[in-house]
Each structure stands twice: as structure tokens, then as C-alpha cells.
């Protein structure tokens, strides 16, 4: 199918066929990553701006590598040491960047809806690299790619997402994307970390870890922010870790072929015991590798496939 979208703002907007399109394109991009000379001329002469208002190593690097392997010029713009620190508004910064005629702006911002705001005002393509607790679509796409690779299919699988769903953009994008691909999604965590009316997103909600993971094909562990005690969401990291941290013992009754995933960065010993993170169940590093492929696919579909 032909890609028609100007922007990638969230999984909620995407059609099933578009998701499949990105995943299939990403597979062919993986072939490039396997080469000794990892460079194709597909996006030569195109400019990609990474506009990151929140600190990020993994996602920004992933987008940067993806752009460079496709021969685009990639410019990194981070909020520290830039005009944002001098009080320039997001829109003004965006207008200034647009005046330099980029083809794609990749944005991460702490405010939900910031990429949508930019997309409304910019002529170039906008990719959401994470906005507040709203969406992180390329993370969901790389998760889907990883699951499809490991399991051979998506439809009919059971995925359990564990932890701080309330504050997680990864959880939302995963839920929207996985539901569209026919996956049964369970979210699990203390009630304080499950957002209101969550079940209306078409997921099962569980407040018991053992029950939630018993039949899972995939367990997605979310990162717990250390400051969550302040809002009264949990009493202590210690208690959270004891009740909700995934250990080999809690995994024992689970499916033998269960996959453990994590969007990173991992709090070792909090949500994930080190021996689980490093176990054969874990596909965390496959996720990172697939992240580059998925972002190559997204950049190619937005900037390179229109024959411009």
C-alpha cells in the first residue's frame, strides 16, 4: 500500500494495514543493518532534525543511526544549551527550525500533545518520539516487530503489561497498537498506577502479578520512576519491587516460551531482577536492534517513499 500520512503521531491514528506496512518495511531495513557497510542512499539530501526536549539516549541515538544509515543529514537539537533554555516557546523554536527547511522533525517532549501541536503548524513531517504520558509510537512498532519475529505472528497472542501504566506512553502506544493487531492485552499493577477507565481501552486489568502473567506469551515490564512515592502512588520502592518486581521464581509457573520485554532503561532489581533481565526469556536487546530498523522504516515512509 502507499503511505499517505504526513506525520506519525500515535498508534491510535494508524490503520492495521499501515502498521503491517511499517513492520514489513522494517524487516527489509534489518537487512541493511546486517551488512558490513551499513549505508544506503535512500534519503540522501534529506534533513532530519531530532528535537528532544527530554533527555533520551536510546531513542535519540536510534533515530540518529536510522537517519544516517539512510544517508540523511541528521541534526540533534536538545533543549539544554539551546534557545528553549532562554524561554523561547515550543512553537517559536519549531518555526525557526522549519525556516531551515528540514524534511522530518522528530520530537520528544514532556507535554502530551506537543507533537500534534507541531504537526499542525509545520509543513514538514513530524514523528512523535514520546510525548508526556500519551504515546511513543515507534516504541510500540519495534515491540510489535520483535514479537512478530519471535512468535511468527501477532494475532491471538496474550501480552501482559506490568507496572506504572498511568504515567507510561509506551503502555498506551502498545495497547493501541497491539489491540489493532489482534493481541489480547492485560495490564497489571497496583490500582494507583492503572489509569481510570483503563478497561475501556479494550484491555483486561489485573491487580495480581502472578495471575496476570500465568498465560502470557509476552510480559512487558515498565520502568518505575523513583519519584512515584511523592504522589502517593506507592509507599516505597522496596514494597513495589517485592510485589511487582519480576523474578525467576515468579516466572517459574509461566509459559516456557514466554518473552520478557522492557522499553528501557531498566531499573535492575526494581521491576526486573537482574537474572531475569539477562535470562534467555529476555529480548530486551532485540528490541533495541529492531528500534533502528523500525525508525529507518518510518523515516523512509515519511520522507523517502513519495519520490519527492
Amino acid at each position, binding site marked *: 500500500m502507499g503511505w499517505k500520512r504526513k506525520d506519525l503521531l500515535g498508534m491510535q491514528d494508524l490503520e492495521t494495514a499501515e502498521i503491517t506496512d511499517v513492520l514489513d518495511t522494517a524487516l527489509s531495513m534489518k537487512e541493511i543493518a546486517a551488512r558490513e557497510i551499513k549505508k544506503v542512499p535512500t534519503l540522501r539530501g534529506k534533513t532530519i532534525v531530532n528535537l528532544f526536549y527530554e533527555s533520551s539516549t536510546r531513542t535519540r541515538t536510534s533515530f540518529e543511526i536510522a537517519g544516517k544509515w539512510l544517508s540523511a543529514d541528521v541534526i540533534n537539537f536538545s533543549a539544554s544549551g539551546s534557545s528553549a533554555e532562554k524561554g523561547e*516557546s515550543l512553537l517559536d523554536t519549531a518555526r525557526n527550525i522549519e525556516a531551515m527547511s528540514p524534511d522530518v522533525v522528530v520530537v520528544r517532549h514532556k507535554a*502530551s500533545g506537543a507533537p500534534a501541536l507541531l504537526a499542525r503548524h509545520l509543513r514538514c513531517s513530524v514523528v512523535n518520539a514520546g510525548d*508526556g504520558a500519551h504515546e511513543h509510537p515507534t516504541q510500540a512498532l519495534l515491540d510489535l516487530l520483535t514479537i512478530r519475529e519471535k512468535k511468527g505472528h501477532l494475532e491471538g497472542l496474550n501480552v501482559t503489561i506490568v507496572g506504572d501504566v498511568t504515567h507510561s506512553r509506551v503502555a498506551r502506544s502498545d495497547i493501541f497498537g497491539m489491540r489493532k493487531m489482534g493481541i489480547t492485552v492485560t495490564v497489571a499493577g497496583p490500582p494507583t498506577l492503572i489509569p*481510570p477507565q483503563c478497561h*475501556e481501552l479494550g484491555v483486561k486489568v489485573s491487580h495480581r502479578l502472578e495471575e496476570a502473567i500465568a498465560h502470557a506469551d509476552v510480559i512487558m515490564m515498565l520502568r518505575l520512576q523513583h519519584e512515584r512515592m511523592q504522589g502517593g502512588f506507592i509507599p516505597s520502592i522496596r514494597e513495589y519491587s517485592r510485589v511487582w518486581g519480576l523474578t525467576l521464581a515468579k516466572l517459574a509457573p509461566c509459559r516456557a516460551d514466554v518473552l520478557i520485554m522492557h522499553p528501557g532503561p531498566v531499573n535492575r532489581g526494581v521491576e526486573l531482577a537482574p537474572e531475569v533481565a539477562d535470562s534467555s526469556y529476555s529480548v530486551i536487546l532485540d528490541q533495541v536492534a529492531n528500534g533502528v530498523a523500525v525508525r529507518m522504516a518510518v523515516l523512509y515512509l515519511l520522507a523517502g517513499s513519495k519520490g519527492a
Partner: protein
Amino acid sequence: MSLLIRNGRVIDPAGGADGVQDVWIAEGRIHKMGKGLRAPAGTETVDATGKVVCPGFIDIHVHLREPGFEYKETIASGTRAAAAGGFTAVACMANTFPVNDNRAVTDYILARARVEGVVRVYPIGAVTRNLEGKQLAEMAEQAEAGCVAFSDDGKCVMNAELYRRAMEYALPFGLPVISHAEDCHLGRDSTMNEGLVSTELGLSGQPAAAEDVMVARDIILAELTGAHLHIAHISTSGAVRLLRDAKARGVRVTAEVTPHHLLLTDELVRSYDPNCKMAPPLRTKRDVEACLEALVDGTIDCVATDHAPHALSEKEGEFAEAANGVVGLETAVPLLLDRLVRRGVIDLPTLVTRLSTGPARLLNLPGGSLAPGASADITILDLERPWTVDPAAFRSRSRNTPFAGFTGTGAPWMTLVGGAKVTP
């Protein structure tokens, strides 16, 4: 000076009138009403055939922003917006800079209004000094200076004991205490209503309980003190239920609702348009239905706009960063006429009551009546006039409306204050 308004449908809820007749104004007051009145030769006449003549509309919840925030609104621009929107009087909230928590600021507002205002301006004084919720403002002097009520609107007085004392202290002045009912702990960091939409958008939500809890507390304090409690911008079905119950038990409590809480839901926030951000936030369909029902049956006493002007720079960026509030003076009456009256949700005389007699009684203001001798504050409506909301044409200095581009039929046609036509 004399003026004859001829042949309009006159709706005067206070006098129980609803029919075609003439209204004769002399010396700024209603002189006489009746069919086929004959005024002396040379009397100016207004042909109101096909129009609706009502007591002047009163908006008891407006932020005029002066002093201190003249870049958002001034008394000059805000009262012109009011006149254009069919309002002959407004009550203005205390969250100016400096705060209207003392006689000097009240005097200043009234002086500016006399010089630059085109509709009547009634200041509302602060409950606590600098709206800090710590120490009572000098309410006796504020009452002497002309404040018509007390409110820390924009902020909730979280200290229940202090609020109890404020209600007691206000008793001898016979003025209501207006509650901005929002538990600031339950609403912490929130930017919208808590529910399915906030969950999908990843925006922190404020549960309806943040309002319900405070409405319940304030009703209990009103019972304890015997004070007149007025609930500002009621927005939840739970608060409406508490209000209905309290009224049935004879508690001295009244309430207002805004046009946006009557017409919009949190679904609109999906646009991330900061013009959909206000406090209290847009709620759900169920809440809207409860507010409409209560407005119709009189549980809610009046409509007030919570006109809250903000500059473009405060309303164009990230949703979470944007200021709370929307303008309402110039859109309220057209929207209510089209969306509620024209669509049969509420009948015209009831809406007129909620915009004139209701608010006048509630704040003990002159107005809300066309009885002979009353000041000739009159709003004339043209129910057939088509409109499109065009923020660029607002008289207000600000443009922050969620209704831009809305179209409808029925709008204010002429506004008279003290018998004089007000040209906005």
C-alpha cells in the same frame, strides 16, 4: 430623555409578563408598559417588531483583569464585550493584580468603571488576603466600598476553619460567599477531567470528586453558619445532586453554570486545543445532562460565563502549560439561544430568568425587572439573526474561545443601560 420600544415581545419574569407590548422609558427608568402606548411627539422610538425585550442580562462571573492584567482585558474592553453580548451588568472577580482584597482596589475598579465602562460593574471582593487562603480580607470595608459578594475564585480556600469564619463574618453584610469548589489536592497537577479521554491522551486528570468533595464541605459549612453560599461554575453531576439535596433541605445555597459546561464535553480536549482548557475542566456527557436538567428545573439559579480572557501567547502552546479559562461574554447568549432554546432544551422565558432575574436576586442587585420605576437596563434579542463565532471580531482584548467557527441563529440585538443604547 425618553424612549419608546414598540411592538416587541416583552418577557419580564419578575412581573410575569410575556406578550407583545411597548416599553416606555423616561429619565433612564421604566415609565410604563402596555399595548399601543402613545408617547409625546418627538420621543425617540425603537421598532422592536419581531424582537424580544427582556430585563438586562447580568453576568455575575467575569474576570475584567484590571488592574494588573490589562494586556488580557480592561474594564473598557470587557464592558464593551459584555454590551455586545447582551449583558447590561457584570460582576468581576478579585484575582486582579493587586488582588481586590481591600477598599482601595474596589474604589479603583468602580472609578474606572464609571469613567470607561459601558455596562454596570459590580466588584466581588476577596475572601482571603492576596487569595492566599491564610487570613481574612477586610470584608467589612470591601462591603462598604461596594463589593457585592466575596470570593477567592480561581483558588479554593482549602482551610475549612477559615472558610467557616469567612461565612460567619460575611453574615452581617448580607452578601454571599462564592465558592470555587475544587479540592486542590485531588486536582493536583491536573489539566483536564479525569476519565477515559484523559487516560487515552495521557494528560493528568482531575476527578469529578475534586469538585464534589468541596461542594459537600461548603454546603455543610453553610448549614453550620447560616451564610448564603453560592457555588461558582458547577460542572459535575455529583455536585448537582448535592446542590439539589441541600436546597430541598432549605440550606441557603445557590449556583451558576457556564455555557461551556452546558454545551461541551472533555471529548473536545482530544484536539489538545488550549482553548478547551479551563477550571473546572470540561466534563462528560452525563455531567452536561445533569447541569442542563438542573438549569431547567431551577436547581441551578443562573448562567454565568466565567469570562476569563488570556493573551494568545498564553493559549497557543502545549496544553499542559496553557492558562486556564475561556472568554464567554460575546458568545454566551447566541449559543444559549441556538443550542438550548432553538433546540427545545429550555424555553425562552426560563432562559431569560436564568440570565436576568436569577442572577439579580442572587446578588441582591438592582435589575432583573421591567417594573415601572426600575432602571431601564434592557436586552433586546433577535431570534432570527444568524451568526458565526469570529474571534477576530470580538470586542474583548482576548480571543480564547472554544467556540470559534460555531454557527447558529438568535443573538442580542440591542443593549440599553439606564435607558441609553450602548454602542459597544
